[in-house]
């Protein structure tokens, strides 16, 4: 996977996750808003696809996302606070 492609995918995931977080905070305050709930589900569907692709081609995002069965990738990529990871 090209480093540029990986960064683009990461950027998309960050944007998507931010949208989900904003929606979650709103839903915490307004749990009966059906429009917000539908939007939450639409975002979740997008995230499922993007996360699966990211973890398959780039690396795990959580400790449960190590796709490879013969290699521990969790510690392999730069940590998120490193210059090269951003």
């Amino acid at each position, binding site marked *: 996977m090209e480093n540029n492609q990986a960064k683009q995918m990461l950027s998309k995931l960050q944007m998507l*996750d931010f949208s989900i977080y904003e929606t979650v905070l709103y839903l915490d305050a307004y749990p009966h808003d059906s429009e917000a709930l539908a939007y939450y589900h639409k975002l979740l569907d997008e995230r499922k696809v993007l996360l699966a692709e990211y973890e398959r081609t780039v690396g795990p995002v959580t*400790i449960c996302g190590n796709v490879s069965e013969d290699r521990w990738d*969790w*510690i*392999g990529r730069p*940590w*998120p*606070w490193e210059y090269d990871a951003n």
Partner: protein
Amino acid sequence: MWSYEKKLQYPVKIKNPNPKLAQIIISQLGGPDGELAASMRYLHQRYAMPYKEITGILTDVGTEELAHLEMIAAILYQLTRNLNEEQIKDSGFDTYFVDHTAGIYPIAASGVPFDMKYVGIKGDILADLHEDMAAEQKARVTYDNILRLTDDPDVRDPIKYLREREIVHYQRFCDGLRIAQDHMDSRNFYACNPAFDRGCGKTCK
């Protein structure tokens, strides 16, 4: 970033409230060897750690400590539920109650609020890893002391679980020290600091 999981790492189900015991166990929330100090220690040490295996251990143990912080808070919450004024006065819980009611506030059993002075972050691999190994042993002793002071099986069960985790974490930090030393110059481990000096050690990144 982090995301929250709405479950405890290990169940906490305490039948009988006991505010006096809560005032002892609260030391594992905000005391010198408590879970808040542990999580802050590892999650902030990891930035200066040049070896990925140990950065991983610090990240994942530090995250588990946050789960332990929640378990201790759950124990305190259940030990201080449904109290009346008389129970509060008779148990000696009144000195906590006057400032925090039944809220969960990180302090030591002595009443001293949580302090980052409990946490050592030296930016030196050997110093930090030895700090971590000592911290796990000290937390293990605190849990041993708590077990000396209560015979309530509902409390002892999650405390014993937490005590066991201290031992496992200690072992992982010992592994980390061995991994770090494998990267360093065995003729003089102190020749340079791989967390600061570029090109220090055998295979510093």
